[in-house]
């Protein structure tokens, strides 16, 4: 396998853009990535694109629609869906295609828009789509699942409402200084603790919103292109994991879970991260910054443990100690996280990778992690989907 680098990246800012369609948002980010990489569209030899589950036929063929804007070149276009780890799948396919020598330069596209109102059921046939059951029979939107797991943490480890609020306070300081973030207000502990209760113990400002956005990386093993790029970033590993039998997590979509654990909580993310550590020959102790999937404050705490940055039950203490701040032992979500961006399902995994790359390229401005050399992007997708990408300079 060849060494593979991110030679360029581009974002469309996160927010709500009802006046735009997803192809327009994707095209903005592709243009920026091409310019950043210094390559022409005709030099892209493979297109791996995340699909938009709420995007209809065009959304399911997002790669073709975006390709046509820049000019159809006949290269392979693959459209992929892995829930919130969709972008991880696109990057992994682009990486594998380049690393294996099939092509020299490929693009991974992540773009999404969120439907109006709440995310809800996509079908009405429970035999075909088990997800229907929770909507018809149990009244369980996504945050309920996180609240059920969060309650277990409170019981098992003594995590407190203040810990959940502290996550939002911290991330809002970073989001305020990130030009691509949707939410830029700096919150106080009091404000978060007085925000509306959504599903106890999770409050409104402790749960991420749904957003629109686009994120692109161009990756290459072409020596000339790597040499010409502005601070290329090496992909040390980009892996995916699915759940492991016996995982006790009550997983979004499901209405059951094993009572006795035979695998770790969030086993798909445990699996993806351990595969990445092995492949990269690196461990949590080597990583300077981590973009984790903070869909809620529970995720922030749980992922520190799931990915091995501290022991079981120790995340709240790590947060309280300040060691997860930008100048701490491990800078966690220096982008501001989903907390400041909101999730754009098909795009967010690539966005996390772009944020990590920007840190390693010294482009993070006031949020810059000093001497950042190794960064990790970790995703979480429902029903056992996860991706881990480790980048180095």
């Amino acid at each position, binding site marked *: 396998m060849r060494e593979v680098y991110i030679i360029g990246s581009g974002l469309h800012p996160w927010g709500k853009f009802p006046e735009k369609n997803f192809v327009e948002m994707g095209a903005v980010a592709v243009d920026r990535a091409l310019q950043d990489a210094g390559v022409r569209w005709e030099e892209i030899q493979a297109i791996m694109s995340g699909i938009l589950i709420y995007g209809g036929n065009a959304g399911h063929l997002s790669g073709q629609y975006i390709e046509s804007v820049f000019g159809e070149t006949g290269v392979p276009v693959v459209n992929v869906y892995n829930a919130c780890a969709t972008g991880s799948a696109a990057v992994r396919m682009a990486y594998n295609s380049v690393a294996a020598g099939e092509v020299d330069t490929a693009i991974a596209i992540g773009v999404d828009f969120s439907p109006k109102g*709440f995310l809800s059921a996509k079908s009405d046939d429970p035999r075909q789509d*088990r997800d*229907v*059951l929770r909507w018809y*029979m*149990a009244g*369980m*939107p996504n945050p309920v699942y996180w609240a059920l797991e969060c309650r*277990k943490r409170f019981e098992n480890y003594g995590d407190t409402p203040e810990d959940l609020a502290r996550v939002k306070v911290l991330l809002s300081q970073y989001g305020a200084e990130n030009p691509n973030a949707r939410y830029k207000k700096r919150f106080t502990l009091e404000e978060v603790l007085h925000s509306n209760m959504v599903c106890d113990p999770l409050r409104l400002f402790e749960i991420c919103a749904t957003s629109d956005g686009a994120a692109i990386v161009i990756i290459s093993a072409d020596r000339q292109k790597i040499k010409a790029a502005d601070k290329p970033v090496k992909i040390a590993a980009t892996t995916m994991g699915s759940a492991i039998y*016996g995982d006790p997590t009550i997983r979004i979509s499901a209405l059951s879970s094993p009572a006795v654990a035979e695998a770790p909580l969030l086993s798909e993310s445990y699996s993806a991260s351990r595969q990445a550590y092995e492949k990269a020959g690196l461990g949590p102790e080597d990583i300077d910054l981590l973009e984790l999937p903070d869909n809620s404050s529970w995720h922030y705490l749980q992922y520190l443990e799931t990915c091995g940055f501290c022991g079981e039950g120790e995340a709240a203490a790590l947060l309280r100690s300040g060691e997860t701040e930008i100048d701490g032992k491990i800078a966690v979500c220096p982008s501001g996280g989903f907390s400041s961006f909101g999730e754009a399902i098909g795009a967010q995994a690539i966005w996390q990778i772009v944020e990590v790359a920007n840190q390693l390229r010294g482009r993070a401005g006031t949020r810059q992690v000093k001497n950042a050399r190794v960064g990790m992007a970790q995703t979480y997708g429902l029903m056992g989907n996860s991706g881990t990408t480790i980048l180095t300079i």
Partner: protein
Amino acid sequence: MSMEIMETMEGKIPRLPDLFVWTAEGVKIRSAVCRDCNTYFFPEYHAQHRPGCPRQNVERVLLNNRGRLASYTIQHYMCPPPFKTTGDITPYGIGLVEFPEGICIAGLIMESDLESLKIGLPMETIDYTLYQDEAGNDVVTWAFRVIK
């Protein structure tokens, strides 16, 4: 299944079929168990075998009517459609109940004092009327309540 197990009750229709039944001992969740890998499934038609299992001995079973509260939340906003229930039930409880068979099942909690919920409380499975259809039948789901 024996004659005492009823897929429907007079005047009551499950909103979706094959998920629970009425018995002399109360409402019971339908499940399937694989006797090869000792795994319980829910719903019964969603297999979740242990890797390597020969998958030859799956049978339909009913879960015990009683279990313990493994986790819970209090939902303060109405779940969007297709969830449907008469009137505003917010805030409402949602629980994860651990059954003696070794499986946890999620569902609504019917409890007037939501603040009294605690992990470990003994729970029983009941039915809950979501709304009435045009013929005047109660359209129901399974739910849980604390055993007092």
